[in-house]
């Protein structure tokens, strides 16, 4: 029997080193390096986590089991360690204009305390990464994917003028507390100028937890109400322990993070998006802010504007699959004998008790309710194009 999660790739993203002669030597050098421990490495192990290599680190894939952790998060609150992600701070003269030349964001409408989803695109409009951008006083704070952060830093450094400072906040950890009881649990420990309940979805603020300065955004990757907490690495064990002592909170691994985001219809970079996909195909037009769709002036703008005007030949859509056999990344999708697409993320939905998937499908076959078939090891499974999210989002947009 061979085991091993297909969704965990070892991507040794690391800072550039110079003591190599050829790219081959460089790769070998990387493979010899041990993985960096994240601030909570020992904390996870002490709680019985199964650790797997992910984005160049050892990360907890599960503690008691993916389904139990998934359901706990949907009903209570789950604490996710996402410290592998890159936290970047940009500052300097002419910051907004400089960043708008790199990202398709409209910074004129991003006010202090607001966070927004954006995309790092290449010159062909392919997706290099997806990220969050927050307006801090005199700075923009970015959260980028762990597996791509070193490349992102390189891309941004190259594209931004020299007088823009890029700070990698690698002494900071990132925790996500997600679920319908997250707000109650977290509010018991936060102090600040205003109560935690003043934050609505995609807003952030400065707070203290047990005397530590933290930044809390009301956002996440599960479809539930929840928070992402940026904190000093040295405070990570303290704060994680404090939060997990709350009756509503349990630590949750990457396995459930993936099944939760899939039910929420949220894309995973490197699987659902890549340099080979356009954000318009992926339905991420909201990541191209309205003013930028007409003005352009960002990498790949020609292709993006053309995709918006003319439509795309394929679209990223949800599939509900009959039976219990999951269709995973790479499974081919058919309409009769015609191959019409490929699954990019798929698995078993604990909430629905059935397999679900996301796939790029020829646009002519993407109307909700369209009957298709997915090939899994030679078996043809009946599938139906389904609206997403598969499980409704429950973001807190104000009471």
């Amino acid at each position, binding site marked *: *029997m061979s*085991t091993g999660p297909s969704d965990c790739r070892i991507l040794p993203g690391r800072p550039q080193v110079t003591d190599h002669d050829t790219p081959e030597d460089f790769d070998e050098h990387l493979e010899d390096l041990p993985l960096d421990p994240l601030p909570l490495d020992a904390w996870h192990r002490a709680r019985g986590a199964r650790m797997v290599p992910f984005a160049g680190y050892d990360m907890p894939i599960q503690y008691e*089991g993916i*389904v139990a952790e*998934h359901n706990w998060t949907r009903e209570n609150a789950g604490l996710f360690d996402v410290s592998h992600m890159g936290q970047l701070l940009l500052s300097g003269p002419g910051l907004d204009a400089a960043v708008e030349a790199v990202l398709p964001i409209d910074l004129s409408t991003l006010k202090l305390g607001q966070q927004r989803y954006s995309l790092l695109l290449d010159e062909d409009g392919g997706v290099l990464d997806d990220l969050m951008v927050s307006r801090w006083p005199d700075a923009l704070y970015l959260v980028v994917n762990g597996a791509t952060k070193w490349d992102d830093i390189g891309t941004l450094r190259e594209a931004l003028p020299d007088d823009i400072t890029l700070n990698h906040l690698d002494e900071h950890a990132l925790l996500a507390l997600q679920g319908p009881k997250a707000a109650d649990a977290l509010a018991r420990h936060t102090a600040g100028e205003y109560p935690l309940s003043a934050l609505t979805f995609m807003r952030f603020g400065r707070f203290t937890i047990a005397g530590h300065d933290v930044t809390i955004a009301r956002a996440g990757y599960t479809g539930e109400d929840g928070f992402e907490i940026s904190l000093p690495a040295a405070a990570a064990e303290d704060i994680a322990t404090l939060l997990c002592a709350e009756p509503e909170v349990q630590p949750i691994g990457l396995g459930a993070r993936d099944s939760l985001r899939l039910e929420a219809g949220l894309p995973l970079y490197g699987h659902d998006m890549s340099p080979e996909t356009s954000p318009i195909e992926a339905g991420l037009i909201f990541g191209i802010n309205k003013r930028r769709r007409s003005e352009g002036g960002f990498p790949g703008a020609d292709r993006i504007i053309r995709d918006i005007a003319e439509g795309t030949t394929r679209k990223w859509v949800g599939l509900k699959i009959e039976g219990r*056999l*999951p269709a*995973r990344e790479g499974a081919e999708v058919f309409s009769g004998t015609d191959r019409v697409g490929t699954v990019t993320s798929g698995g078993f939905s604990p909430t629905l008790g059935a397999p679900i998937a996301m796939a790029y499908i020829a646009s002519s076959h993407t109307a909700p309710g369209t009957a298709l078939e997915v090939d899994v090891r030679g078996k043809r499974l009946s599938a139906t194009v389904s609206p997403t999210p598969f499980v409704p989002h429950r973001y807190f947009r104000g009471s």
Partner: protein
Amino acid sequence: MTRYFTDEHEWIDVEDGIATVGITEYAQGQLGDIVFVELPETGALIEQGKDAAVVESVKAASDVYAPITGEITEVNPALEDDPALVNSAPEDDGWFFKMTIADEGELDGLMDEDGYQAFIEAL
């Protein structure tokens, strides 16, 4: 009845010339929540080490290999409706299939219970 184990985490009970095959407690723990088991066709002739079944957990698909060469005589019908039996009772009610034993000599290369325990402790 004699129980053998493979280094691919299958167990094999041999009784009256028929082998019953399943995956071990250790294996189910590694796989996590099992949502589907794809079993071979009855009558299929499978060689030792070749794909015999697929276990789908929430996180991944994993192959189960034939521990010995033989013909599939029966598959566990309970797994179709309740694949989680592999999690709850991997070494009895969660068995996968029964097969003939084409070559008794293949059993000699397998581990006994003590040998398997030592094997997983070393992992």
